[in-house]
């Protein structure tokens, strides 16, 4: 993962040459970022699978496949805690980079070009584009709602009858927040696995090609390269 000498020699001052890797690649996600992502992914997918089983009788077989309804009910909240813990750590790692900036407004205005794969018409995104920031915050807030309502649903019998309104709110908001995360999740998988070639590898091996960085995250590319040359 150490950049070669001649790559470093080409670098103008002010960039982050330490992030460059072999074969004109650049480190996008460090090990602790990748690990957190996969802890979140694993716990989320378990919660999603068992949650869908509780959501619809037509999907209850998922709980049966995963060892039965009882064990699914026991593990679902624990897995949810792990998920929320990893989301909190993501907040710690990324919340500063996820702040909305002026360029993000332009990004939303150009959304139709992004959807139709005309990425050269997009305003220059930084390390994260506005859509990714939206995904992050949406997961974060929905995760918080899932946690709070989930705690109520974890121990419904502990709540006194006079506080039953908490159960009523939770039993409705929990699936609402879950549906928000499902929408996020589907778009996230689609973008990461199918649409942006190179993105999936980045969260496994950590690096993306310089071309990928330049194309999808020009602002971040300039930050790494320390160059102020305009994007071509």
């Amino acid at each position, binding site marked *: 993962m150490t950049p070669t000498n001649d790559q470093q020699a080409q670098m103008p001052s002010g960039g982050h040459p330490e992030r460059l890797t072999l074969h004109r690649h650049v480190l996008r996600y460090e090990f602790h970022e990748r690990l957190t992502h996969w802890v979140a992914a694993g716990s989320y997918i378990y919660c999603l699978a068992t949650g869908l089983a*509780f959501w619809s009788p037509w999907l*209850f077989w998922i709980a049966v496949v995963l060892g039965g309804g009882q064990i699914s009910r026991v593990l679902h909240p624990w897995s949810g805690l792990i998920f929320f813990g990893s989301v909190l750590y993501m907040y710690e790692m990324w919340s500063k980079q996820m702040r909305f900036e002026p360029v993000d407004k332009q990004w939303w205005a150009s959304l139709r070009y992004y959807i139709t*794969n005309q990425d050269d018409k997009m305003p220059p995104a930084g390390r994260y584009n506005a859509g990714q920031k939206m995904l992050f915050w949406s997961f974060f807030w929905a995760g918080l709602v899932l946690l709070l309502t989930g705690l109520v649903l974890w121990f419904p019998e502990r709540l006194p009858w006079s506080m039953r309104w908490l159960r*009523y709110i939770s039993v409705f908001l929990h*699936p609402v927040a879950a549906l928000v995360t499902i929408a996020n999740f589907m778009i996230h998988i689609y973008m990461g696995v199918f*649409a*942006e070639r190179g993105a999936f590898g980045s969260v*496994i091996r950590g690096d993306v090609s310089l071309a990928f960085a330049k*194309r999808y995250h020009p602002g971040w590319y300039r930050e790494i390269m320390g160059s102020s040359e305009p994007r071509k």
Partner: protein
Amino acid sequence: MSQAALRINKISGHAGSIPGEDTQRQDLVCKLVDTTTCIGCKACEVACVEWNDMPFSQTTFDNTYQTMPDTRWNYWNLILFNEHEREDGSLQWLMRKHQCMHCAEPGCLEACPADGAIVQYSNGVVDFQQANCIGCGYCITGCPFNIPKFNSVTKRVYKCSLCTDRVSEGLEPACIKSCPTGCLHFGTKDDMKDLADKRAKQLRENYGFANAGVYDPPGVGGTGVIYVLHDATQPELYGGLPSRPSIPLSVKLWKHPLKWLGNLAIVGGLVGLFVHYLKFGPKGREEEDIAGTPGGGQP
């Protein structure tokens, strides 16, 4: 057990049709509790614990005659004692046998996600099948009467079964059997309604209870336990009996519009993403990227 002889009307968390539905006609069964003749002897409480072979449960003394504040997972039947001061200053001692109401539209069953954990027999009895219970406690949220009780050791939920093992053999429930005053009656819903109406009329005409009436709340489709009350306009006096019980609105919203909108959105989203991929395919790659090493740049 002999429940097999009972036909099933509703099954919780069940996909598809209900086996044996509409193959046999059965009368609805009903308990009638005449609160005006209850003397608070608690024979029904003891009979319930005895017949259902429940482990001993410690009682709680809170300066009333009541055995404990609320029903428990192993104490399904509780007489609630309420002192009510009337407008003229006289005292009325109201006693009500509190247990599962066996709603025609049970909120517990509606909220339950586990296949077959709650069933409603075609005689109207709502019964928990602990073998299928996953212990999520959604029934606790769905019930407007605060009936299902969680056992934290077995992680299952329990409540009155209307002695379905006795009823399916043609016997009356244990509580009815034990009642010494005749305040408890058991029979078909039609017969019990008739009897209750007659008793309420008697109370209105001969005993000066102008508001005497029958409690059979339509908000849950009627119940398999009906009450004759001295004052049917104020059921809350009888230990918080709700005047207009129904399945909580949020449970209804969650189980109907939200479920269908959510399913539509999920399936629509999947189809939409697939069609998007067919039309636009993956995002492009730079010339140099394609020329670079496959496999993301590992040496």
